[in-house]
């Protein structure tokens, strides 16, 4: 089932009348396609959980409509929407066993529509098998690890066969190793069931790795929607560029002058297309640097960090906006660890320019200098 938002807005009036109201969701106007895994991504407090609560019906929007396929569900209470939801702390019923927890949504179906007792048992078992907890059915939530609890929560959300599955920070309560494993697991379950799945996270790596589509949010507003790789490669603005990628993108202040891209006095790339001369932010991905004796971009080296497969060069430059520059180069590049200066060539497709006022991306062509 696809989900469509039409100018959806949620405003929380501030208790303190002197402070402005909080706009948690600002004019959502897009469509979530059927059968995909969607990551709602943004820093904490950006309104992504509110968006989730509006989809499941726990919150009502201040303005706008929300559609499941072609049905307007804006005013439908959560119990009638039939969505499945996994809460951040799982919200398992502590007094019920795993089996009873998973059975709970089925028991709430109206008697006339409720499946037979055997069929319910079968469906519970099926859901349990999907998340691989069928051997824990008689345990209470308190007797299980965090990862197991989460599987139960997912099974409970899936047992009704919901058209939409929502997950609020599904991995945040798990330790690092389990997080990686569960990530794969989520992807597998989603692919197996084909349910339109929306999950909320503040961890860009998590969102990038498994989503079919990511929605990057900041302060209630959607900044960009797209396939993770596309969003990474072509960020719409500086915020998106900075938010995605580890290590983060390196940002410099620079200038377009006479068709050349200048950082300090060095022309690092050529600019083509219809762009006027102006000051710009230059974002360079860590993997966008190439070690070169004749490189156009010179930085002061601080140290070299060996990471095995790659080598990370930490350096500084007067035009940088962060604390340091991080560039990732292959470990066999043969860098002189004691050099004071390092020279780089830049890969044009790893460099983005942003307007200094609006911080939006400037569309133009970039290429290497000739010679």
């Amino acid at each position, binding site marked *: 089932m696809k989900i469509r938002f039409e100018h959806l807005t949620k405003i929380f009036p501030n208790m303190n009348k002197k402070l402005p109201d909080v706009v948690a969701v600002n004019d959502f106007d897009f469509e979530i396609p059927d059968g995909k895994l969607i990551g709602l991504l943004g820093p904490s407090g950006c309104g992504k959980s509110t968006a989730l609560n509006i989809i499941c019906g*726990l919150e009502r929007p201040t303005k706008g409509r929300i559609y499941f396929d072609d049905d307007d569900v804006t005013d439908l209470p959560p*119990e*009638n929407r039939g969505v*499945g939801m996994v809460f*951040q702390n799982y919200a398992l*019923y502590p*007094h019920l066993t795993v089996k009873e927890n998973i059975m*709970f949504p089925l028991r709430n179906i109206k008697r006339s529509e409720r499946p037979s007792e055997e069929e319910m048992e079968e469906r519970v078992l099926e859901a349990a098998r999907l998340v691989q907890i069928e051997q824990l059915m008689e345990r209470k939530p*308190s007797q299980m690890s965090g990862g197991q609890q989460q599987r139960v929560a997912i099974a*409970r959300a899936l047992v009704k066969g919901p058209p939409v599955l929502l997950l609020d920070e599904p991995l945040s309560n798990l330790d690092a190793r389990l997080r990686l494993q569960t990530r794969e697991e989520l992807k597998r379950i989603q692919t197996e069931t084909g349910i339109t799945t929306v999950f909320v996270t503040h961890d860009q790596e998590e969102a990038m790795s498994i989503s079919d589509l990511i929605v990057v949010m900041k302060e209630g507003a959607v900044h960009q929607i797209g396939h993770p790789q596309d969003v990474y490669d072509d960020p719409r603005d500086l915020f998106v560029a900075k938010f995605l990628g580890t290590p983060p993108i390196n940002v410099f202040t620079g200038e377009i002058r006479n068709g050349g891209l200048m950082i300090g006095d060095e022309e690092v790339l050529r600019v083509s297309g219809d762009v006027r001369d102006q000051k710009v932010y230059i974002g360079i991905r860590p993997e966008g640097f190439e070690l070169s004796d004749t490189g156009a971009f010179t930085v002061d080296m601080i140290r070299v960090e060996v990471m095995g497969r790659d080598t990370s060069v930490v350096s500084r430059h007067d035009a940088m906006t962060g604390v340091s520059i991080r560039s990732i180069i292959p470990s066999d590049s043969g860098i002189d660890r004691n050099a004071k200066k390092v020279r780089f060539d830049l890969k044009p497709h790893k460099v983005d320019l942003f307007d200094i006022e609006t911080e939006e991306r400037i569309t133009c062509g970039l290429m290497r200098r000739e010679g």
Partner: protein
Amino acid sequence: MISGNKAKGWLYLLPALLFLGAFMVYPLIDVLIYSFEEGYNSASQTFFGVGTYNYSYVLRDPYFLAALKNTIILVIITVPLSTGFALLISLALNSVRKLKNLFQTVYFLPYVTNTLAVGLVFMILFKKTAYTEGMVNLLINWFGGSSVDFIDGPYWAKMFVLCFYTIWIVLPFKILILTSALASVNEDLYKAAKIDGASGFTIFRKITLPMISPMIFYLVITGFIGAFKAYSDSVALFGTDLNAAGMNTIVGYIYDMLYGNSGGFPSYASAAALILFVIVLTITCINLMISRKNVHY
């Protein structure tokens, strides 16, 4: 943790040990001894022999049996009613936002008032005298009933007032405990249940009730203990001569045996106190057994 010298620790504990030893531990042993000393005389502090006569005397004393009956009726009526009513009020309180704190504070007021003092007000509200029918009878008359003297009248009327006042007095504590139990239920559970399609009543029955069941059982247990020890409520309503009013309680019987016009029999009082203790202990154990079966988590 401080690992100072040993004497210091005991020194700090000394006052507490002295007070508890003199006024709790020693009396505890002593009351057992008293209860088996037959024919103890307070004045001469002598006794004839040792045996279970005190117990059999108390158990055959019509005053004790009347007190036992009164207490049991009081317990059976007030414990379920007050717990149920407190739950209703707490649920109502928990479902509103505006004025919640004000209501909560008002409801707690009876807890801090002097039982004797307010009991006197209740007596006046319920009493029928030559000058006036009393407030409550006025209400009954409005609804077309005929007046009853609740204080010096028929037994059921007196029992009604006693139960009513007891409930009024114990409700604040129960409301407070249940309201905070309800407030501490994780909000996400309700949300999850809503999404799982549970109706309001189902949420109450399957989520709220089990989640607060430990507190409900705690209240039932303390309610039983408290109601079995009822005394000052009865004094407040019917005066100190409870035997004459026919409204004595077990604790009242104990004190009457000890002191006052009918007093001077600490042995009987001790036997009665121990009987009460055994009753309360038994009921508490039964309660605990039931709760272990039903409070699952």
